[in-house]
């Protein structure tokens, strides 16, 4: 498959994520949108890695591996983020009985 298809798909996913983050007020949905953006990047990284390997794999056996490595890193970080983020949301729900982010602007006071 041509690389462009992957790129277009990633961009679409990423934009959906951004719009979700901007438009929605429910913390859980924002959270999911952030995950969506991260995974859009992951998808792109894997696609480029594959492409790179196809082009240079004959000369260098490990060509493109680092792209895959990044994906693992991102997934690990995302997992850690989810655990922390969900904990925050839970705490928030306990305090204000809502997961609406607009309630959070009280921090500034």
């Amino acid at each position, binding site marked *: 498959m041509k690389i462009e298809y992957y790129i277009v798909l990633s961009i679409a996913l990423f934009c959906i994520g951004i719009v979700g*983050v901007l438009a929605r007020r429910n913390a859980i949905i924002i959270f999911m949108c952030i995950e969506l953006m991260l995974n859009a990047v992951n998808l792109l990284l894997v696609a480029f890695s594959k492409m790179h390997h196809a082009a240079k794999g004959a000369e260098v056996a490990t060509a493109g591996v680092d792209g895959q490595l990044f994906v693992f890193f991102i997934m690990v970080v995302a997992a850690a983020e989810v655990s922390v983020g969900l904990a925050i949301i839970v705490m928030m729900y306990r305090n204000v009985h809502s997961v609406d982010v607009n309630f959070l*602007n009280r*921090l500034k006071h």
Partner: protein
Amino acid sequence: MNNIIDLAWLVPLFPLAGFLLNGLFRNSLSRPLTGIIGSGAVLASFVVSVLLFLEVKKGNTGVAHLFNFIEVDKLTIPFAFLVDQLSSLFLLIITGVGFLIHVYSAAYMKEEEPPHFARYFSYLNLFVFSMLLLVMGSNYIVLFIGWEGVGLCSYLLIGYWFKNTEYNNAAKKAFIMNRIGDLGFLIAIFWMIAKLGTVTFSTPDSGGVLDKVGDLTAVDITGITLLLFVGATGKSAQIPLYTWLPDAMAGPTPVSALIHAATMVTAGIYMVARSNILYTSSAITQTVVAGIGLATAILAATIALKQNDIKKVLAYSTVSQLGYMFLGLGVGAYTGAVFHVMTHAFFKALLFLGAGSVIHAMHHEQDIRKMGGLKRYLPITHITFLVGCIAIAGIPPFSGFFSKDEILAAAYLRNPLYYVLGAAGALLTAFYMFRLYATTFLGSFRGTEEQKHHLHESPSLMTIPLIVLAVLSVIGGWVGIPEVLMHGAHSLGDFLAPVFAASAEKMEAHSISHSTEYLLMGVTVIGAAIAIFVATARYRRNPELGEPTGFGKILANKWYVDEFYQWLIVRPVNWLAKVLNSFVEKEFIDWLVNGVGKLVNYSSRQVRLLQSGQVGSYVLLMVLSILVFLVLQFFIKK
């Protein structure tokens, strides 16, 4: 170089020691002791001055070098004393007349508390010290040190009775007007340094200012001399800076005699005479000096006609006589000017001390309208005062005749108009002096009964100086008898000739025919005699008691010059200061500074609004900015 000249530093040392003794121990010294220390110090200086004078008379002159005052880069200013004909003559006048006035003061000021009495004498001694520095300095800086020093002492002594605000104002006015002149002096010194790199008068290897006149352009010479003359107008009370001198009469009368008649105010004449070669080299400056001198002489004489304060009359007379001296300097009659300084020191000190004696007898009454007929009560004062009046009026063979005649004859040579105006001024002099004399001493007593009861001749400590000065006022002129009257009798001229030799060379030697000279003398003497006669006849019977009207009122108000200065200078300066302080400083500069601070405050308050706490808006901003950067990148790509 001679031993005695090396000891020249003793001359100013004695008054300095007297100043320190009287100043530091003023609380423990008794009045007689203070008087002895103060007068003794000046007497000691006088003795050394006489020795120096005799040495100089033998033809030995020299410089006593003490130490190098300032030594920077290529400029070296030594602290050294010059002893030559001119300075030794001034030394005699200052210490001689100074001593007499010190003695007189001891009696005149005896009502003061001992600490204040000691303060008075310490100021007087400090003044003598500064004046001696002024005339002995071997360069313009030491001269300037003395120059400002006498200004300071004048300030201190005018404001001696410091509880009186008016006296303090007079003292302050004197100091500030002197400072204006000093500024000119100082700039002249800078000019010399810039062009010649030295301020020493003259050195053996011809490296001094006065040796290097040839290196200066005409502009330089004119500029330097004019600026120096600005200094002289301040110190010697000439137009436009003369108004402080009459106000300075607020000080004790002996101070007026010493500082504001005999010595300090002649500093300007000394300085010009010292720089004579510079002045001779600039025709423009000479004209200016002669013109200002003449104008001052006449202006002050007219004002003196209508003054009723005995000291004010004498003060304006001093201003007027100083004008004559500058006229002499302006027409190149340096010897004549110095001669007049000397005779003026005698008779003006005499007149002031006489006035002091009158004031003393009248219990500090200075208004001549309340005097009259004092001849009977103060015989010695009367006689000596009369001698002073005749001397200043210029009747031969009293001293004033010879010196004034010499100046007027030289003025005639330069420009007959100078002579005419000068002679007219001389008539005025004779007139107002005898108006003063007649109103004070002749006629009948017009004071209160109580004053009349207390009228008494002053103690001998005061009358002896009067008698000595009276004798000097009579015979003082005989050292300068003009050639036409007696051949080779101008011993003062011969004595001073070396100092003015360079100038004499430069000026073409005009000489005046004998018949003209007799005529000139005759006109002034007869004119003065008539003026004396008219004034005496008119004022002995009917003194002016009322307030003057018409033109007389303008004269009595001193041509409104003080008011004019107030309007022209003092008020604008105060106004400017007020505007700068209350408007520019507070409303503008500080406003700008605080404005910057307020702007920061304001903008941060505005920027703070962006921090709404809405996570969504932060993210939106972030995304938008990233987009903007992306777009920008497309454009910036080459």
